[in-house]
């Protein structure tokens, strides 16, 4: 007699492949972690929200943190890095205003940092979906 308990579909699915793949993909490209798991609507909404927030930050001449001179700069770099490839591509293209001179540019800087932080939340959510912790 088979005594193995019936596993839910999510648990069976989560035992296949590299478990951190959606987390890494979601960090590099906003929404990609959810796309890999077949959550198309959630992924699209996340991607649109995060990419739009990042793009609006750049359009407002927000600053991309490039070096850590003090603790606040370090936190800014950490937040910006959350955007994954968006951050690296923007740095490579030389986008973003360097010194913040206007109030709107300061808002733009915050938009860019928060977009990165939201992307980290979205990537962790994809990881939770992958491991079956969330449905």
């Amino acid at each position, binding site marked *: 007699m088979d005594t193995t308990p019936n596993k839910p579909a999510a648990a069976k699915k989560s035992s296949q492949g590299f478990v951190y793949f959606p987390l890494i993909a979601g960090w590099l490209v906003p929404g990609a972690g959810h796309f890999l798991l077949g959550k198309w609507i*959630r992924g699209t909404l996340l991607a649109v929200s995060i990419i*739009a*927030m990042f793009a609006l930050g750049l359009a407002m001449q927000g600053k991309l943190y490039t070096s850590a001179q003090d603790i606040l700069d370090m936190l800014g770099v950490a937040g910006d890095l959350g955007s994954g490839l968006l951050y690296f591509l923007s740095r490579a293209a030389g986008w973003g205003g360097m010194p913040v001179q*206007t109030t*709107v540019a300061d808002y733009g800087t915050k938009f860019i940092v*928060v977009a990165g932080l939201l992307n980290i939340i979205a990537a962790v*959510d994809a990881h939770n979906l992958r491991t079956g912790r*969330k449905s």
Partner: protein
Amino acid sequence: MHPSHFAAVFLFALFASTVFGITMRDTPPKMFRYSAYCFVLFVGSVIVFSWVMFLIAR
């Protein structure tokens, strides 16, 4: 691009509450309700504190 302060708040609240709703709840109806809740709190708190600062500055 130079949005007004309220437009910046509105856009920030819209995108942040969308991500919060999707990531913090399990089912679409709960996601929608939580997104709306976060959006109202974001924008509402800004309006309330703006009036408080206006009255303090008078």
